[in-house]
Every structure is written in structure tokens, then in C-alpha cells.
């Protein structure tokens, strides 16, 4: 299974600043929790435009932090909400939550990136 965040891509987008990338991820996690609550509220109210709006916001932010699994699922929710086809949305929100759980601790990803960038090049 692919990593929840492509750290190399994220760090490149942060102009090589690993610390900044970590801060961004922490903020993203906090924001995502709020967005998920808002999304579920909109689903309960069967508010398709509201679902599409929140999903679009998650999709944009996830794309920028290189959380591709999250981005794909948010895009799926946005598409369905825009088409007023909400039958499948709950399943996708569950998947979104699972992706969120995988984001719980990205410190190992950051550590591997730091060690990869600081280790000497291998011979041959």
C-alpha cells in the first residue's frame, strides 16, 4: 500500500524545508478533522452542495500536501455530490477516515526522508 503522503513531493513543494513540511502536515491533520465533521454533518442533512464544497476543499489541500489517497477519495465525493448521487458517499467517507488514520503518525516518513537525504551515496 502506498504511503499516505508522498513526503518527497511534499518536501519539494516546501522548497526542501523538512521542518516546514512537518508543520504543514500537522496543520493539515487538524484541519482535516474539522472538515470531516463538517462533511458528515452535511451528509446527515443531505446537503449535496455543502458536501461538494467541503470535499473540494479537502481535495485541494490534500493535493498540495501530496496525500494522494485522500485527494482521490475527496474528489470522488465531490463528483458524486455535484451529480446529486449520494448513495455511495458514506462508503467514500469511511475510506477517507481510514486514510486519515494512516496519517496519524508521519514522523517515520519524515525520519526516513531525512536519513535518506543525509546518508552518503552508495558506491557503484
Amino acid at each position, binding site marked *: 500500500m502506498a504511503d499516505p503522503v508522498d513526503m518527497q513531493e511534499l518536501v519539494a513543494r516546501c522548497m526542501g524545508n523538512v521542518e516546514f513540511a512537518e508543520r504543514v502536515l500537522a496543520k493539515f491533520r487538524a484541519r482535516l478533522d474539522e472538515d470531516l465533521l463538517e462533511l458528515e454533518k452535511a451528509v446527515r442533512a443531505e446537503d449535496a452542495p455543502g458536501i461538494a*464544497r467541503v470535499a473540494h476543499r479537502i481535495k485541494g489541500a490534500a*493535493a498540495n500536501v501530496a496525500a494522494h489517497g485522500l485527494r482521490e477519495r475527496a474528489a470522488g465525493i465531490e463528483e458524486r455530490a455535484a451529480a446529486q448521487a449520494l448513495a455511495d458517499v458514506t462508503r467514500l467517507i469511511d475510506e477517507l477516515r481510514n486514510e486519515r488514520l494512516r496519517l496519524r503518525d508521519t514522523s517515520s516518513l519524515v525520519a526516513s526522508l531525512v536519513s535518506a537525504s543525509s546518508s552518503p551515496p552508495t558506491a557503484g
Partner: protein
Amino acid sequence: MRVLVVDDDGITGEMLENSLGRFGYEVTVAADGKEAFDLIRSGLYRLVVCDWEMPEMSGLELCRQVRQRRWSGYIYVIILTGHGGVGNVVCGLDAGADDYLTKPFQPDELGRRLRVGERVLSLEARDLTIFALAKLAESRDIETGVHLERMREYCRILAEEISKCEEYQDVVDGQYVELIYLTSPLHDIGKVGIPDRVLLKPGRLTREEFEIMKQHTVIGGNTLNAAAMAHPEAEYLLMARDIALTHHERFDGKGYPRGLSGEEIPLCGRIVALADVYDALTSKRIYKPEYSHEIAKAIIMDAEGTQFDPAIVSAFLNRELDFLAVRRQFQMRLAAVG
């Protein structure tokens, strides 16, 4: 240079601030279109990177509002959004955006797109600077008014007409037409180097004074040539130099400063020569009344092949109605101002 980033997602705003800051931009982040519009009104921002979906005012609505108003300078807007697809791109550009990118942004690409925006803005600055310089030189002259404004319109009309001639099709294209419109107001810039006692003398000039006056072509030509040599990539400076130096040459070789004849005179100089004289003839001057279009036309036709290139006279005759329209348009504008 300042960049205004507009995004309701604070994380994206922060990432853009970080990237663009590394490229040397001074970044301000606004959370929606309304806040951005107020910031743009401050006059501090001419480069804007803007999300589409935002509360209060969307990015597209911001573009529309920006384009509806007159600003002191152009505002260059890049839409950066999660909405992909050709239909959305068309929609964004229709709303008035200059460029369109989809998220996730790539810092290098965004940086280069902003450089394009800077180049567009610098072209506008160049055009305004050239015209301001020309107006400054003209302000020393007694004959002010809107001579430069009218003359560049006449030049554009003549160049457009000349572009239809088979002989000039390879030389005169849309770019040439725009360049002559841009640079023709600089034709008399050398007058800044003519002493007041000659330039502002109300009566007829003596032979010696006229020789001094003729030097305005050389002064203007040399000044613009020095600038052209320092910036060889700036094609407009070469045309400006040729115009300043040769707009008093005559087709029969009896003009000044060098007595060039026929096609020795650059085409732009031959075009400006006719436009300049037509405007002088149809304007009131201290030493002469305002002539009608018919009289001016007769004088120009009489000078065909002597003072003026027959091809330019022919272009003038083909487009005389457009000359009249320009003249009327400026007469009405002056009357409205009072």
C-alpha cells in the same frame, strides 16, 4: 515584487507564501475574494494568485470585478484551483484571468508563470514610460495639445495600409504596426536639446537658427541610438531612433539632416513624415491657421514623389476617411474637455 495570494485554505496560503517567498516575492495572503479586492484597491498589488472556490467572493467573481474597474496599472491574475478540465479553464479565462493552473501547484512552474506576468506588466510600464517621455519633450514646445496622440493614430493607419502592399508584406506586420504606434510619439524628443531662444521663438527663424533647430533630429537619433546600443534586444529603440533621425528627410533627397532619398530613408521615417505634416497642416499654429482636410490633402498630393514617398501618399488616400475620423474624434474630445 509583491504578490497577493488569495485562498481560503490557510495551509495552501502558507505553502504558497513559503515557495514564492523563496523566489524573492513579497507575499500577502487574503482569505477570500472580498478581502483581496480591498487589498488590490490599495494599489500595492499587480500580481495575484487566486483560488476559485472561496466564501464571500469567489476567484472568478474577483476577476470580473477587477476587470470592470479602471486601475492605475494592469492587474495580472493567475487562477490556481482544484477545478481541472478545459471547460473550467475557458470559464476562468472568460472571467478575466490571465493564466490558469490546477492544484497541486508546482513551485517551479508557478514561479515561471509569475515571471510571465511580470514581463506583461513591464511591457505596460514600457509603453507608458515612452509616451510620458514624449509628452515631457513636447511640453517644452509651444504647440502642445494632442499632436502626439493624433499622430500615432495616423501612423498606425498608414502602417496598416502599407502592410497590404505586396512589396512590404514581409516587413510590415502586426508587430510593426504596434511598434510604430508606440515609438512615433518620440519623433521630436531631440527638441529637449534645442535652446529656448530658438525653440520658443514666435517669429520666423533665421538661417542660423533653423540650422540649430534641424539638430533636433540628430540629438534625438543619437540619444535613442545610445539606448539601442546598450539594449540591443529592445527592437523598439531602433525604430524610435530611425524615426527621430529621419522624419524630416524628403523622398527627393532635399530633407535633413543627411539628405537621404527614396528607400534610403527607413520606412518608419517616411510614414511619420507624412503623419507629422498632415497633423501640422490640419492644426492651428502660431504662424498659420488650421487647414481643412481637403487643403491638407491637396498639399500632400502635390508633394508626392518630392517630399513624400508615393506609396505612403497612396496609403493616405486609401485611408483618408480614417484620418478624418481620428481628427473628428480628437476634436470632439477637446470640445468635451472645454
